[in-house]
């Protein structure tokens, strides 16, 4: 097993270093871009080809995907160490990383669909990796939500076939009306924005290394990446709709994470709220800041998933936080890193997340995004603080419920992956800001001490109120716990209601129309009676002597006197 883990991880790190060296040498950071185009067919008037674009955006994203995949391979050497079919798992993860890199490097709809469809389908296989009915239903809702996005993208390609180009710069030549809207809708399904949010918490049925790679950094950010690349197709109306949906997603995810008890689902919902924040920033217009937040978030969220994975593994695969506790004394390194990644998520000063979140709040204040959206943004930041502190409390506090009082954390794969990721998560934004000048944005806001302190005090009081209500057990809370823990009933609507409704309707349709009208009426009795009725009657006539004579004399008369 160590050979395969080592081989896979080394290959990822090799490619990471290769790309890093290439990036430093080739001057991509100063703004040069490599474009390779491959024309596929000349039957159409427009250029039908794949184009590969290697600019600093693609390079940075590829680097972070490769680094995180390397750490995840080492981590899965620890988490799946009892697994017999580890090579199969690595094969699936490699296919996933390949699809993601194809998506990143080819901002052309024909090439992007390879990566996009590949992501959806391989994530289905990864989610159903543990062959149980729970994971099958999770996999189905993941794959079908992604399929809706695929269909939207197919329609975008259909629309783009009437315009002159499939690439991201096609908007300079010709652009149609619905392209931006359909593109945004497709990205929203992949990034689990509001109507399509139900799949992300369900997809936590996958093994934790899969969640670390897929559901924190790569799959859900694929939609955001596509919107960033093709952001010039978005008009005013689409940006407005994107803002509304992303706000609702942030609020939904933040409030649901305060009431959720499964550790992995809490982290998934925090991912969802951060992705909503990225989409929100794109809708305001600052694509570079959204990309910065995407990269930084990938690192500390992966670290958070790894820590949660360690806690789950050492508790004997128990994911329910009500039965965990006391990690502060039992798993010191894990709990420290969990604390750091949560602080980074909250935007504690000078951690990774602080730089990107500060830029986000700054750009929202200085753009024209309206008073209500600003209030909602602050509320979502407060909710982030609330659920982060709650999850820290759940993992750290020793309530005496966990039966094991001593864990030994001596698996070298786990330590190695945590060490690699730790450097990545805490300092990543400073490193990125020093490499890439576009991430140092300056916003011209007059910083008044009174108002910033006021916001901080309001956030603190809001969190106090929330903690008070979450920990009380009155009857009112019965309903609101149901409401929040099923994501405002979205998971019940998307999964249960739609699938049961559709399948029941189809079964009834088969029963009545398919088996009823078509098979029996059209084929078996109706048309057959129509055809055979005449010949049956003629046969019956011919069996009677009088009838026979009359029939043949009639035929004789017809033949003789026909002109």
């Amino acid at each position: 097993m160590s050979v395969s883990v080592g081989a896979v991880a080394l290959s990822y790190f090799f490619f990471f270093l290769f790309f890093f060296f290439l990036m430093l040498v080739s001057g991509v950071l100063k703004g040069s871009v490599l474009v390779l185009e491959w024309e596929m067919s000349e039957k159409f008037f427009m250029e039908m080809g794949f184009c590969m674009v290697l600019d600093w955006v693609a390079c940075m994203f590829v680097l972070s995907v490769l680094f995180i995949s390397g750490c995840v391979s080492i981590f899965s050497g620890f988490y799946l160490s009892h697994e017999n079919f580890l090579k199969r798992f690595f094969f699936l993860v490699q296919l996933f990383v390949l699809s993601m890199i194809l998506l990143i490097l080819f901002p052309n709809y024909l090439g992007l669909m390879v990566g996009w469809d590949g992501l959806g389908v391989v994530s289905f296989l990864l989610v159903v990796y543990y062959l149980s009915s729970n994971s099958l239903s999770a996999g189905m809702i993941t794959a079908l939500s992604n399929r809706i996005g695929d269909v939207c993208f197919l329609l975008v390609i259909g629309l783009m076939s009437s315009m002159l180009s499939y690439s991201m710069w096609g908007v300079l030549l010709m652009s149609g009306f619905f392209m931006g809207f359909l593109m945004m809708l497709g990205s929203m399904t992949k990034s689990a924005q509001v109507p399509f949010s139900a799949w992300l918490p369900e997809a936590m049925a996958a093994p934790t290394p899969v969640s670390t790679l897929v559901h924190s950094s790569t799959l859900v950010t694929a939609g955001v990446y596509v919107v960033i690349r093709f952001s010039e197709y978005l008009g005013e109306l689409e940006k407005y709709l994107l803002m509304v949906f992303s706000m609702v997603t942030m609020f939904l995810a933040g409030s649901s994470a305060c009431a959720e008890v499964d550790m992995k689902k809490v982290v998934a919902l925090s991912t969802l709220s951060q992705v909503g924040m990225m989409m929100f920033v794109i809708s305001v217009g600052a694509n570079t800041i959204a990309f910065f937040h995407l990269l930084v978030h990938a690192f500390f969220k992966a670290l958070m998933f790894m820590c949660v994975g360690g806690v789950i593994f050492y508790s004997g695969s128990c994911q329910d936080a009500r039965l965990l506790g006391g990690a502060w004394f039992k798993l010191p390194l894990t709990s420290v890193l969990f604390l750091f990644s949560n602080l980074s998520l909250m935007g504690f000063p000078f951690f990774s997340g602080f730089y990107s979140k500060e830029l986000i709040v700054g750009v929202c204040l200085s753009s024209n995004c309206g008073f209500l959206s600003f209030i909602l943004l602050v509320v979502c930041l407060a909710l982030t603080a609330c659920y982060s502190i709650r999850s820290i409390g759940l993992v750290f506090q020793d309530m005496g419920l966990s039966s094991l009082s001593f864990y030994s954390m001596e698996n070298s794969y786990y330590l190695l992956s945590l060490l690699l990721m730790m450097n990545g998560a805490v300092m990543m934004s400073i490193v990125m800001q020093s490499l890439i000048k576009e991430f140092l944005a300056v916003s011209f806001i007059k910083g008044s001490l009174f108002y910033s302190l006021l916001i901080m005090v309001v956030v603190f009081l809001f969190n106090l109120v929330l903690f008070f209500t979450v920990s009380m057990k009155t009857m009112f809370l019965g309903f609101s716990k149901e409401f929040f823990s099923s994501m405002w009933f979205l998971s019940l609507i998307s999964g249960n209601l739609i699938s049961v409704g559709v399948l029941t309707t189809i079964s009834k349709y088969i029963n009545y129309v398919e088996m009823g009208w078509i098979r029996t009426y059209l084929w078996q009795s109706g048309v057959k009676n129509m055809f055979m009725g005449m010949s049956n009657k003629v046969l019956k006539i011919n069996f009677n002597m009088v009838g026979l004579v009359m029939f043949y004399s009639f035929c004789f008369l017809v033949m003789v006197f026909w002109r």
Partner: protein
Amino acid sequence: MSCVLMLSVSCILWGLGMNEVGWLIMVCAVALLVVMMDCPFNFYILKSEWLGVDEMSVLMVLLCLLVSMMSLVSSTKEVKNGFVVLMSGWSVVEMVMFICLGSVLFFSVCSWMDFFFFFEFSLVPTFFLILKWGYQPERLQAAVFMLLYTVGSSLPLLMSLIYFWSNIKSDNMLLSKMVGGWKDFNMNWPWLIMSLSFLVKLPVYGAHAWLPKAHVEAPLSGSMLLAGVLLKFGGYGLIRLMWFSEVTNSTIVLFVLVFSLWGGVLSSGVCSCQSDLKSLIAYSSIGHMALSLSVLLSFYSVGKMACVCVLYSHGICSPILFSLAANSYEFCQSRSIMLSKGISRIFPIISGVWFFFCILNMGFPPSLNFFSEVYSVGGLLSLQWLLGLMGGLMCLMTGAYCLILYSLVNHGVVSSMVFKPGLNLSYRYLVSSVFGGVLLLGGTLCLDMFFV
């Protein structure tokens, strides 16, 4: 000429008993096709008094040969056991060769009467394939339905072709079109009645009931040929008929378009609730054919190209799905979805191949299926936005049933029917699957050849 000579010498040698010559024959046949491939896509060239060539017919002949090859490879169970089941002297292999011969000639002849003859000719070996080699009463009903309804709906076509022949005095496709054709005719209703036979063969949704019955009752090679080749007769015939009859876009054509598209959506939905594996794949065939028909009837040039591409890619993908279903029939002795489950735990490579072909069926880029689906939906979208939405809905349901098919066969606990002694698993299915997969994936690289 030299190719034909080589081919006939090899056939004689094969008949005399040299067994390795079989591969040589196939290679020569494909080489013959490659030689014929120097024709541009817009022209129809008469190579001789009997054969007419354009790129679409070359593609279809290639498809026939490939599908026959794959079906013979996959059905060696009937040949290899030392006991060949013969029905009045013929075995399954001869029937498959007859269908192949009839199909190759159907796609190459250039006169309308020969076209009609070979259209009906290939029904006879199919009828035998479905009916014999088994004694269930459903076989009789399936075979009779197929024969009766196909032949019955092609009688108007015969009548109109004879009428046309007696007017123009020539039934050569190219010559009759150049001489005059159907000028001064309002071709709406006559077109519908003439194309009825192709619509039943294709099959369009209302007239589709023969297809699941025939698939369920036929043996593997019959199903493979039926799905791979015989359904394409309808598509090919419609393309030739559209060219020949100069039909224009009108309410009737739109009616058939909308009817077939909505029927495709419905049959893709019906797929999700089937309990028989072969029936599921049969309904998926109906969905794909409906998509190709509706984009053909949009009268765009991309429509015809996308239609031919769908025909080709479906013609390779669907027989392989049937061979995989027959594979799982071999170990579970049942086609029901309740009994053949959980293959992913015991046969991982076959499970991988199932996955690969399920996602190819739903249009996974960069395969040929993806491009055919994209340009079909694109063509429909250019005609009318609502039709494009319907096409998109069909793609969504296609994705749903393909994943349902994969998870039904592969997920979960291993079915208890599987562990029987004497399980003869052979890799012949995998060989033909890999071959088909390479064709479909590599078709992207030479897209111009398939977009005719």
